[in-house]
């Protein structure tokens, strides 16, 4: 098993390298001179600018620049933010807890909701429950998440005043009242993400279950006298788990992508909000770093899916 995991980890290195080259190439091809701000300053003569260029290696050939960029990225030296003058890595790390809190909670809730709904919908195919679940999932992945968010805001924050409109990231988890306030402010952003995530996952669980429910081994299990419940939950479900787990792992980036929208809508100051503010402030170092963070997340979730394959299906390990 550890051998299998090791091979998978090794295989994800080239992907990460390829993505890092793509992101670097985008940056390198982008128009604009990083020193253009300095050029406007009459106090900095042309020769000084040239000196800065050489010092920072801006005139080096691109493989050299790429190597420098990559190695400093790996060392945790992500440069300095243009707008706040502090190290990019510090700014990013400050934002991670808020994002993880909302995203993680939403993610768990979506999985816990979607799998039972999907199973039940498949077992009772074409029942009213299945129809309802189908309509719900179509609505769920057709409605843009910013619109769900706005509707929630309109009903629950503006009209009913149940939840606060603005997210307070200074709240801790110290006392019962704080925990309650946390839950209240998380309710709306979490719901938006859950609606989006549950929709896709329910549909997927249902079809994976349906693929297996018609198989011969199901009939065999029933024929030897096993209760239907046990057949569905142990036999069919474990066989359906492989595609389900794939989607669960692969949707990690989707839910982080969704967080870009919810964080901006509900003013949660996480990574997604940071990305948009940095874009609006033309804060290139932060934008670059965040793009790479999202890419790493993507590769990481691919890796998780691969490893889970190996855990769930021994055949994969020896391939």
């Amino acid at each position, binding site marked *: 098993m550890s051998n299998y995991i090791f091979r998978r980890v090794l295989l994800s290195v080239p*992907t990460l390298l*390829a*993505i890092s080259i*793509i*992101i670097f190439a*985008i*940056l390198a091809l*982008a*128009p*604009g001179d990083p020193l253009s701000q300095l050029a406007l300053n009459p106090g900095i003569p042309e020769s000084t600018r040239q000196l800065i260029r050489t010092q920072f290696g801006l005139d080096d050939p691109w493989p050299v620049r790429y190597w420098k960029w990559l190695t400093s990225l790996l060392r945790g030296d992500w440069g300095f933010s243009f707008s706040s003058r502090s190290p990019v890595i510090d700014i990013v790390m400050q934002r991670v807890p808020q994002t993880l809190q909302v995203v993680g909670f939403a993610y768990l809730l979506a999985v816990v909701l979607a799998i039972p709904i999907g199973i039940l919908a498949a077992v009772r195919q074409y029942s009213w429950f299945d129809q309802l679940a189908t309509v719900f999932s*179509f*609505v769920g*992945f*057709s*409605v*843009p*998440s*910013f*619109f769900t968010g*706005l*509707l929630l*805001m*309109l009903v629950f924050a*503006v009209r009913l005043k149940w939840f606060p409109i603005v997210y307070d990231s200074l709240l801790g988890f110290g006392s019962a009242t704080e925990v309650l306030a946390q839950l209240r402010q998380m309710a709306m952003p979490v719901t938006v993400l859950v609606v989006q995530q549950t929709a896709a996952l329910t549909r997927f669980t249902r079809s994976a279950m349906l693929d297996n429910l018609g198989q011969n081994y199901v009939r065999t299990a029933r024929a030897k006298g096993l209760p239907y419940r046990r057949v569905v939950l142990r036999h069919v479900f474990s066989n359906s788990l492989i595609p389900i787990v794939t989607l669960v792992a692969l949707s990690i*980036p989707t839910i982080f*992508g969704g967080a*870009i*929208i919810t964080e*901006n*809508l509900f003013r949660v100051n996480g990574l997604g909000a940071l*990305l*948009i503010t940095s*874009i*609006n402030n*033309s804060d*290139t170092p932060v*934008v*670059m770093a*965040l*793009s790479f963070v*999202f*890419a790493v*997340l*993507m*590769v990481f979730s*691919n890796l998780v899916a691969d490893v889970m394959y190996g855990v769930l299906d021994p055949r994969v390990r020896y391939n």
Partner: protein
Amino acid sequence: MSSAGGSRGAGGALPARTLWGDTWRRFRRHRLALSGALILLLLVVSVVAGTFLYPFYLVRQLADSGIPVTETSPTLTSLVDHLDYVGILSPPSRVHPLGADDLGRDLLARAIYGGRVSLTVGLVAMLIATSLGAFIGALSGYFGGLLDNILMRITDLFLSLPGVPLILLIVYLFRDSVIQAVGSPETGIFLILVSLIGGLSWMETARIVRAAFLSLREKEFVEAALALGADDSAVMFRHIFPNALGPIIVAATLGVGNAIITESVLSFLGVGFPPDTPTWGRLVTDGSQYLQVASWLAIVPGTLIFLTVLSINFLGDGLRDALEAQQAA
């Protein structure tokens, strides 16, 4: 498969049934898909007809309300920016059927204009994604071997790129220079958006087409075509491709919906079209400032996006059922 519907000729002669006719018959039974198709048709027709007809109505109404449009020949494009100071934040009324925004701009005019933008972005992005995906998938599945290996590695790589963050990054870095090169902000952003959305969503089509080509290239009709002297490109695109059309159409349909959502998300985040171009996503953003006093400003465009994408998804689902049965037959 039992034959349902279809009128039988009285004299025993059956009317000819074609493959596409059968598909249509199956599709018709999927009620949700049929209503999706109808709603979509209605939306497209309203956007097209509204572009030409609605300006007459609005100009007339504005004249009746006492503050006529001063322009000589107002079109939808100019009316989108017409400021009716009397109608600021007015709820739906006779003059403004869907109300007016904080500057007194007519919401229906802006929604029609936005619909044109959103639908065009969706269609063009889908065309790019589908042709790219079909081409790569066809090459990969038909030739196999090393080429297949390389192309599929590239496909995997694209699948592991972070979609929305990457689009945000590229739009951010290249927006100004593309706009400068093209000369118009709206066209420039349009080009960036469709090529990015299309260029980042062809992978599923490529995989579907590859799988179809892998199995179809072993069929007898391909052998026959090759024996008759057809060259590779003729076999690929004249003989195999039409047989793989079903799944491509389904993927393309769903692709339009996804492209519309992505565009609206970018507009919502303020990274899409320039602020003065009223796209549906932008209208929702602008409207969200007035949730408390004029909630319809955000609800109307949001519902339009939702309705369009929902119809497209139902349509795609129905097409899948209808076309996959065709494949199985």
